[in-house]
């Protein structure tokens, strides 16, 4: 059974220095509040896993929490680079970053294998690419027709962290819309933290592609309304595209980024400081603060 708790105690209880952590959400439902909380609690030496590192891992990497990144597309969607990620790879700042890179299809197969309790997943992929020489995959022959396929290792993170629209009071989690690899990462991981827009008496899944994670597959549920900003929760909020655009300037400059983290994350008691700054616009005008 999932415990309904606060985000800070969920992170404190389940995320340790050195943990492998997968904060998933494919553009939609990205658990930003949880990312901030991990930074705030000063976790170090994390292996962070995510198909699209997005701004959430740009923040964790820039804040010095990460020693290894497992990913498949590391840009700021529609905007350009993730500058803290690039600075870590290109200049070892703030510290060297080990990377393990895959394709989206490969990562999806890895999570699915992890959720299925299998040692590896199989796909028709990687063949002919240079990525095959720089990552962990292996050729495998179909025992039935001899086709050469690619095996990818299962992913079983220590902790999965996702955001969802709802949980009921028993801790059953409901989500809909673009669900990415949310179900797979939850079922693949040793423990699961879910932040939710609201806790309701009865789940009310009112959108396409509804999914439920039963309470007994989840460890901690923490209500954090708008806990996915600047990502979005279908039915609750819109993606803050202008924040993603402004992040390009904030993250480009090491000093500006450090000040931003200090004001809105490490120097703030919780996510509400950040949300207030989102509402009054100061979250993206930090240079003038």
């Amino acid at each position, binding site marked *: 059974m999932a415990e309904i708790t606060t985000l800070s105690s969920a992170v404190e209880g389940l995320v340790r220095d050195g943990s492998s952590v997968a904060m998933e959400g*494919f*553009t*939609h439902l990205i658990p930003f509040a949880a990312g901030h909380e991990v930074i705030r609690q000063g976790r170090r030496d994390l292996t962070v896993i995510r*198909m*699209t590192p997005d701004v959430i891992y740009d923040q964790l990497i820039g804040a010095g929490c990460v020693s290894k990144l497992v*990913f*498949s*597309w*590391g*840009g700021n*969607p*529609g*905007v350009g*680079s*993730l500058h803290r*990620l*690039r600075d870590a*790879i*290109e200049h070892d700042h703030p510290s060297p970053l080990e990377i393990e*890179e895959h*394709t*989206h*299809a490969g990562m*999806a*197969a890895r*999570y*699915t294998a992890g959720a299925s309790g299998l040692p590896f997943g199989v*796909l*028709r*992929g*990687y*063949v*002919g*690419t*240079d*990525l095959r020489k*720089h990552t962990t995959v292996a050729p495998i022959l179909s025992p039935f027709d001899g086709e*050469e396929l690619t095996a990818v290792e299962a992913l079983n993170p220590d902790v999965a962290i996702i955001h969802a629209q709802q949980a009921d009071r028993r801790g059953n989690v409901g989500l809909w*819309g*673009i*669900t*990415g*690899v*949310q*179900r*797979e990462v939850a079922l693949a991981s040793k423990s699961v933290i879910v932040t939710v827009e609201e806790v309701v008496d009865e789940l009310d899944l009112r*959108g*396409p*592609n509804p*999914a439920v994670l039963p309470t007994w597959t989840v460890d901690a549920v923490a209500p954090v309304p708008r806990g996915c900003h600047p990502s*979005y929760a*279908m039915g609750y909020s*819109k*993606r*803050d*595209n*202008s*924040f*993603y*655009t402004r992040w390009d300037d904030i993250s480009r400059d090491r000093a500006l980024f450090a000040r931003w983290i200090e004001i809105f994350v490490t120097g703030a008691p919780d996510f509400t400081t950040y949300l207030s700054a989102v509402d009054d616009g100061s979250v993206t005008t930090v240079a003038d603060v």
Partner: protein
Amino acid sequence: MSEGEYTADEIMSIVAARQLHDGQVCFVGIGLPSEAANLARLSHAPDVVLIYESGTIGARPEVLPLSIGDGELAERADLVVGVPEIFSYWLQAGRVDIGFLSAAQIDRYGNLNSTVIGSYESPAVRLPGAGGAPEVATSAGEVIMMLRQSKRTFVDSVDFMSSVGFGRDGSGRDGHPGKGPTVVITDLGVLEPDPATHELTLVATHPGIEVSEVLDSTGWDLAVADHMTVTEEPTEAELTLLRELKAKTASAHAAI
């Protein structure tokens, strides 16, 4: 801009849009491909099926998505599925006719680089990476590519083979199910792989573009077809539709 005038980017999008037809199933990358694919859907191909890797199938966005998973895509789609399913049941199983891709670099055999400039271990520029493109490049029935043409983007040999066109020496497709690149649309003209050698060959220029300009914007000795054509001018209707779509998109992304 006075009547009848258009930018290089506009003709690139319009010529790319003309490649798509009703009934085709198209796996769309974000950015230039998404703009062209939606232009096709809003004009001559209302029944083209657009699939985005975020799991949205039959997406009909009213404004162009900034990211591959904007709510706009999910709200107006035939169905939404998870990411493992989009890559396995839909792409890998062969249900996609056309993959529509862009990249940072392309080479003479239509191979794409979206990973690094320089070496992988210590890159001069770390690019975002390939994401969904490698499997689109191999599993889609055919691949349409769209890139702005310059010596920086059109290189003799890509720094990193992120997505396979015809391989380093053009010798083939390693038994991949899809045909690979069939056409490359740029802001200067149209390239197609030679049927025998698979080397990209200039087959058309956009109106007002000299062949020499295309050659000067290519990092290898670009082959030119014997029977070159000039692409058809954008119509007023095409230009109006594209500009309306971009204006609607810009105002939607500015407001929140």
